């Protein structure tokens, strides 16, 4: 484990716990009928976005997936506005027009969650192309989060090849939770070792324990530094686990064994972190509990903010389709 400042440790724990409680709170609200549609919880996977985004600034760009709340939070998006977006409110990042699967905040370098599996991967490559074009790779890189399921998509292969031949400052962060909906990676992915695919592009590929935020942090530090030095892309295979089903109403017990789930929970990212920092006396137990208390309060406020927020007005149906367009966008009635 590299030397990590106390401030950064605090950030890592706060971010992971914020994601955990956001997902749990969001699920409660979904079951209460307050979310307006389908939601995909990422609890269990918190170490991945946290350990990577710890090295990024608002000038770096990330692309995300249908399971994107953790990426948003790690990139600094406000949880009250995220909750409002999921509840379809006008105060959400996307005025309630995007929803859980399309949260974006361009001011924070978040290019938007994307519900077509693999489709955001070339967007992060494009953001990296902009950085290279402008010659500012040292301060702006692209990070593409995608799952093991996306590794079977053609556009993901194309994107990796483009990034490799053009030496673009991008990180391919495969959030490998072992399942594409109910289909296991051992069935759908041609290799047990997704990192080995990097060899085919002539770029580094690294297998990482995605339950251990320190392992993710270390691997990402090297990949980010390499990108910022202008040496090109890295593929990270971050082995992790989602505690809930594919979407809010999915029961994963129908296709995953309880022992498997228990084994991952034994190595829960928050638990590993707490044991490590208290064992090595890097943080006190009271510090951790006060972080947890603050997050509980934040979640209560986020829910209240969302519930108190207005719905978008009907004119929002027609806005933001184009910058300008001379035909009406309203339908025929």
């Amino acid at each position, binding site marked *: 484990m590299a030397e990590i400042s106390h401030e950064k440790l605090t950030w890592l724990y706060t971010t992971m716990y914020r994601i955990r409680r956001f997902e749990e709170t969001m699920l409660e609200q979904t079951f209460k009928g307050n979310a307006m549609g389908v939601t995909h919880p990422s609890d269990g996977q918190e170490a991945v976005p946290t350990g990577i985004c710890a090295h990024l600034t608002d000038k770096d760009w990330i*692309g995300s997936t249908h399971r994107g709340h953790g990426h948003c939070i790690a990139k600094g998006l406000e949880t009250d506005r995220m909750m409002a977006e999921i509840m379809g409110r006008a105060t959400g990042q996307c005025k309630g027009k995007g929803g859980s699967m*399309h949260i*974006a905040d*361009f001011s924070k370098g978040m290019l938007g969650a994307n519900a077509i599996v693999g*489709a955001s991967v*070339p967007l992060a490559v*494009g953001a990296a192309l*902009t950085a290279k074009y402008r010659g500012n790779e040292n301060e702006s890189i692209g990070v593409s989060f995608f799952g093991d399921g996306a590794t079977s998509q053609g556009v993901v292969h194309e994107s990796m090849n483009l990034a490799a031949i053009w030496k673009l400052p991008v990180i391919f962060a495969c959030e490998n939770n072992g399942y594409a909906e109910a289909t296991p990676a051992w069935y759908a992915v041609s290799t047990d070792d997704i990192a080995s695919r990097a060899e085919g592009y002539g770029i580094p590929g690294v297998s990482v324990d995605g339950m251990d935020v320190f392992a993710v942090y270390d691997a990402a530090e090297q990949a980010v530094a390499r990108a910022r030095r202008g040496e090109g892309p890295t593929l990270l295979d971050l082995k992790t686990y989602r505690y809930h089903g594919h979407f809010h109403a999915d029961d994963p017990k129908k296709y995953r064994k309880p022992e498997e789930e228990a084994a991952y929970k034994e190595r829960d990212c928050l638990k590993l972190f707490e044991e490590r920092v208290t064992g090595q006396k890097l943080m006190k137990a009271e510090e951790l509990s006060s972080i947890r208390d603050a997050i509980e309060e934040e979640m209560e406020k986020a829910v209240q903010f969302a519930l108190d927020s207005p719905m978008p007005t009907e004119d929002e149906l027609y806005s933001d389709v184009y910058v300008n*367009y001379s035909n009406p966008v309203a339908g025929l009635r």
Partner: protein
Amino acid sequence: MTTTENPPQSSSGALGPGYDVPGQEMRYRDAFNKTLRDELNHDPDVFLMGEDISGGFDKETKEPLDAWGGPFAATKGLVQDFGPERIRDAPISEAGFVGAAVGAALTGLRPVVDLMYFDFVTVAYDQLLSNAAKSRYMFAGQTKVPMTLFARSGAGTGHAAQHSESFYSMLAHIPGLKVVVPSDPYSCRGLLAAAIRDDDPVFLVNDKKLINLTGFVPDESFTIEIGKGRYLRRGADVTLVGMSYTSVVCKEAAEKLAEQGIDAEVVDMMSLSPFDEEILIESVQKTNRVVVVDEDTPRASMASEFAAIIADKAFDYLDAPVKRVTAPHTPVPYNRGLEEAFMPGPDDVAGTVLTMLGK
């Protein structure tokens, strides 16, 4: 919306197509190349991306060779002057590089993508539909996607079923995307400049049959407003509506009809999304008869869309049903005779008008 007369005004206020502005006769392809060059000079954020656009590289020096001048010579000479960063040769990965262009547009650049053949749109269709066209809406106006795509469409050159498509309607159907279809070197220059300067994603379709045709082109850069049609010929008896190469077909049909004493008006749509409803209605109010000519297959086509708009908004002015002259509901055949039969030609259009007039 007011209808743009032919000639439309240039962006600088000078008159086009340019009886009082300096210019020259040139081929459509040269007008296209000249406009790309102008736009690369105009804005350093504009860059081109596409397969083979710098025509190979020397293995020793890594220098681009520009062997072909790019597909249909559209980018000839550009890599020498603007370099391989701005004339970015892409591997055969339409989905990948169109997606990367969307990412570049979202983060501040103005990519111009050469998709070579129009048929290759479908390989990149998800990036076009789900990312280029929807990002602004999904993210509630936080961003814009100022990218331009172009490709070559149309039958008539023996390229057969997978290199001859004209499915404009598959693009015009997408909210968030704009579609423009030049029909001569002048409109090519004005619409390409407008597309590149537009802040929304714009697809410009080049019919292969236009590429070597010549016409007057002003020297000075100008834009044609996207969404405006124009009159290529004024007439009183019937309106012929064309788009891309079928505007040429309509002009030829009008000449044939003139020989028989029938005075046809020709409307060139130039833009398919948005499109100029007013020019359609204005012309039909005058002529009371209309034939829409489209090389796309007929089901759910632009021809059907224009027919529906005219039926809805100018019904009282119609003396005859709106007629459509389109390709058949088939893929494009290879055999020259079959291909000729596939494309709507001047005789098909003139014949439809004669039947409509009971002659």
